[in-house]
């Protein structure tokens, strides 16, 4: 990377982090010039996908099976299956479409890290979603992990943080991109050509170069003036968005010709094409309707297999695109379901749940944490990751997020320091990932 490019990357990172940099004396770096507006090298990973089962999944029908005490009507304790150290609920006979637990674990169990007994502390959708996405319950300002890692690792990517739903706050660190349809990707590539046709540019090269230079000059002049913080952020983010958007032209070759039918697969193709083109760091993928207050088993047997099928789709397509070895997958939901059925055969909100992780740097075939026979969280010793009902602690989203920040190598980044999780050192999960 040339020194000039490096400087520009630094500048753009700062641009995106402008909301953080209240005291950062980096004003000289704002003097970006048009010659800096050349296309950036692609971001080459790692990539992060956060799958969200919106509404609250029933973990006892997936990675935390019980089969006792009336918790599950579709199977008994003796029906619980295993793969390596994993125990999971049998769903092959009950699922409506999608991928069964049996098939999912058979293919991915060796790579899969499961955490059971996660305590969300509350049991309403909005706060739970926020808490699980950010690791912070009592703030509306904190960024989601996906946004945070995008801001830290690729703020200059034009689609750095993609979201298809779920709680998606960015903490003003990075812009959130919504690209709901594959054809939309085509639409935003090649903005300087008429109807996106590269052979029909709006401007001759020399004119376009002059426009870019004038915009860069103006940007530099603005940066030298005292501006209100909001204005300064807006100028920076606007300039970065327009300049970086040129890189979107790289997406075109990776847009598949046919559009998959499954909900998650459609989202996945947008994310994967963007990853492959080096224009994206992270994506929130989400499907909803897990909130099975009525007919829990029917709903969960339709949705969990659909969800797992989506996860498998991503992993298969990532393999085909040769980015699987750089793809980190986080699978979560904002809450669990109660251990009892209500009068409508549904299950209500439960503040204990699970999460799954898979990707480079994560040792699979492991299960950390647990719930007891009543589906209550069992305290965990964070140093040994063993159950310790007496001296253990309740593992909450901030513990997982702190671990994620360390895993991604961003825990010491200025953005993370700006949004501290304040997990005491002795509560850090030691050896969580491998």
């Amino acid at each position, binding site marked *: 990377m040339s020194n000039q490019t490096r400087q520009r990357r630094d500048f753009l990172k700062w641009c995106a982090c402008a909301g953080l940099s209240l005291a950062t004396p980096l004003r000289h770096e704002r003097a970006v010039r048009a010659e800096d507006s050349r296309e950036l090298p692609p971001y080459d990973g790692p990539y992060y996908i956060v799958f969200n089962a919106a509404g609250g999944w029933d973990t006892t029908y997936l990675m935390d099976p019980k089969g006792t005490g009336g918790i599950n009507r579709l199977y008994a304790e003796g029906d619980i299956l295993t793969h390596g150290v994993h125990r999971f609920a049998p769903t092959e006979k009950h699922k409506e479409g999608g991928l069964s637990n049996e098939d999912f674990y058979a293919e991915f169990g060796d790579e899969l890290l499961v955490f059971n007994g996660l305590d969300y502390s509350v049991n309403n959708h909005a706060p739970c979603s926020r808490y699980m996405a950010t690791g912070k319950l009592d703030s509306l300002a904190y960024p989601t992990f996906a946004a945070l890692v995008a801001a830290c690792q690729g703020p200059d990517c034009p689609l750095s943080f993609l979201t298809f739903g779920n709680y998606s706050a960015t903490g003003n660190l990075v812009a959130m991109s919504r690209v*709901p349809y594959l054809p939309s990707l085509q639409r935003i590539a090649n903005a300087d050509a008429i109807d996106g046709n590269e052979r029909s540019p709006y401007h001759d090269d*020399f004119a376009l170069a002059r426009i870019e230079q004038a915009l860069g000059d103006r940007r530099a002049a603005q940066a030298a003036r005292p501006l209100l913080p909001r204005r300064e952020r*807006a100028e920076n983010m606007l300039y970065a968005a*327009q300049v970086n958007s040129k890189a979107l032209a790289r997406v075109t070759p990776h847009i598949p010709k046919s559009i998959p039918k499954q909900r998650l697969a459609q989202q996945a193709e947008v994310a994967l094409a963007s990853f492959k083109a080096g224009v994206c760091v992270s994506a929130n993928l989400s499907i909803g309707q897990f909130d099975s207050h009525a007919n829990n088993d029917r709903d969960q047997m339709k949705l969990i297999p659909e969800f797992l099928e989506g996860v498998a789709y991503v992993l298969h397509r990532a393999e085909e695109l040769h980015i699987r070895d750089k793809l980190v997958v986080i699978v979560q939901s904002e809450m669990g379901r109660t251990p009892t059925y209500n009068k409508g055969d549904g299950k209500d909100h439960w503040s204990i749940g699970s999460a799954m992780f898979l990707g480079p740097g994560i040792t699979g075939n492991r299960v950390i944490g647990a719930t007891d026979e009543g589906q209550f969280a069992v305290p965990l010793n964070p140093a040994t990751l063993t159950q310790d009902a007496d001296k253990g602690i309740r593992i909450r989203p901030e513990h997982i997020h702190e671990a994620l920040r360390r895993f991604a190598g961003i825990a010491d980044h200025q953005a993370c320091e700006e949004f501290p999780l304040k997990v005491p050192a002795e509560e850090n999960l030691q050896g969580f990932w491998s």
Partner: protein
Amino acid sequence: MKTHPADKSRTNGDRAVLCLVATVATALAAVAQAADRAPCPGPDCLAAADKWFADEVWARVGAMECIKCHKQGGDAEDTLLVLRDPGLAQGDELKKLMQLNRDAFARVARLKSDGQPVLLAKVTGGLDHGGKQVLKPDSTGYRILEQFVRQIDTPTSAPSTGSLVDPDRPPFFDGVLMLDDRRLLRRATLSLAGRLPTEAELKQVSSHGLKAIPLILDEVMREDAFFERLREGFNNIFLTLGINGNPDATVLSYEHFEKTRLWYQKHDLSHITDEKERRQAGYKLANDYRAALLGEPMKLIEYIVRNDRPFTEIVTADYIMVTPYTARGYGIFDELQGQFSDPDDPFEYIPVKLDALTGRSRREDQESETGFYPHAGLLSTFQYLSRYPTTETNRNRLRARMYYQHFLGVDVLELAARVSDAAAVTAKYEIPTMQASECVVCHKTLDPVAGLFQDYWRFEANFAIYGKRKDGWFTDMFDAGFEGEDLPAEERWRALQWLGERTAKDPRFAIAMTEHAYYLLTGRRPLLVPKDLDDPLYPAHRRAYQEQRQQVETIARRFVDGGFSFKGLLSDWVLSDFYRADGLATVAATPERRAELDDIGVVRMLSPEQLERKLAAVFGRPWGRLTDQTAMLYGGIDSKEVTERATDPSGAMGSIQRTLANDVACRNVAYDFSRPPADRVLFPEIEPDVRPGTSPEADVRIRRAIVHLHQRVLGRDDEPGSEEVDRTFALFAGIVTDAATREGIDEREIYSCRQGLESPVVDAHYTVRAWRSVVTYLLRQQEFLYE
């Protein structure tokens, strides 16, 4: 400090101790109150103590934590500590309320249990505190209370002066530059009516300054474009356009509108002989009908504002808005027909009071003492009820939550309190929402309002929205009511009207509407109270919050005093420093000052709709491509899944901005030159044959043309010799010069950019394309893409 219903399982011994404490405390209260003041040497001392209490104990602990439960109607209303929310109070009233709160705190601060201050024990979760731990012992909030207790215990000591407020700090807007009056007018007319100011309006402002603006705005807010903006702004809040399914089914239910809701299917279109045309007309009929149904709630808001009616009618109006098409759906067209100016206009709305609903069977008939549907503004519209539906398990709590958020500005789930083990609480109590203090704190407020919606108890809007629960309303919920007042049985048939009447009188309503006006104008919510007392920038954040809050309250009071005029709200915000702030005289020198100013200035990225309107205002016609999927890509909303507009541009949006700038310039530059000078909007005083560097006069004309473009496109009033004009001139001249050195340059504009011209435009010297580059350059700037 409080007793929760959950605490009623306490032993008699516990109760005795609490009673004793309360009795002793009451007996001591009067003495204590006097003693509290006695040692104070004079008014200054007392004022300092009061100020310290207001700034520290109240602002940082009482208002943020204690008052959630310790208030009339709150979960801890039967304890010794009952606080008063100052709301919109000011002057002597505010002083009186703060004094009452200080006295209440002081009473509890004197109590001891085993020699330890009860206040400190309770707040950290001791002595069976119903609210469990509120503050950690090492927190700033705790230290403030500790200091307060010490002050009460040793009244001879000087009052605490540890306030973080610097009395010598400069005024909040010190060094902040305000928009000049002309630019303020441009910002306001573009924002509110999607147009540029007229010459006459600019003259008024030039002559009379800021004083002219309210009168001008008063006229602007009579234009149709304003009402379009108003409806759009309020849909961003209420999202009633986001109803699922076909509105002819999900707004008008089978149960009550079975025979009329699908009127369009039988509508006689036989006068259209061509089959295809007839089919298309049928589609249009249905689409217009559905759009008209969806539009009713926002048209209600428009009607209220257009007719200068008190804005409280959004919760009290005893009518809805219907059109000739929707009236057919309701089955009331025949009786209304004569009231419409054009009975065939699908979008002519008039106010109407519906009859009470009649079901297919008598048991589904609506109860009504008047014979009319009990309208309560938006609250009782089928659209609002359908957009925020209920389920068997949700029990109208979503509706109650949205009611609080929309009409009182309270987000009950905004910052949910952490529970040490929520699962255990859920399992421990038979009815956690009525017994577990962690749940009661919200449900005691939320559930009574949910109960007011009890007669809208159907789960499939297609079949019914109105309908009673077969077994009566739930007994394992707090009774229907509002803020501690039970709904009288005889009012049940009009429960939402009962709620609307109370809402209109609630001071939080005025605040919420003031905040909605701010949201409409700036695209963001007012600041939330900063919570992190240990943040080094807390004082700066707090000051920013307080200054803005003070403005919100001032405008809200004027709103109330002015008879709830929503136009007045908008006008007041436009004239406020928060809307006018535009720059800084000098760089904010410290992180603290930057933090104070962090949210100042409108600086709002225009939404797709606003951007189209602005393009239409500047160029005389919209771009027309920021619609549907492109609008969504550009941060728009669908009012269903995507309900928050993007506030910062992503790379995808940056790409759209570039396309927009290229394409709008392409469509308009040669076209403008092709028109008679008098009709031009971009180049009224220059022709393509004026080339840079050919004569001083030519350069002067080019600079004047640039000044005009800067004014028209960016709203800037630049001098011909200014730095900005220099830069644009250099762009224009540079391109013309570059082109002159190239071979094979076509003497015409490119094909796509010379379509639809009114007369041929020659571009022999590349000046037309250079001007197009200039316009592209201007359209990509923050001053165009933001407001």
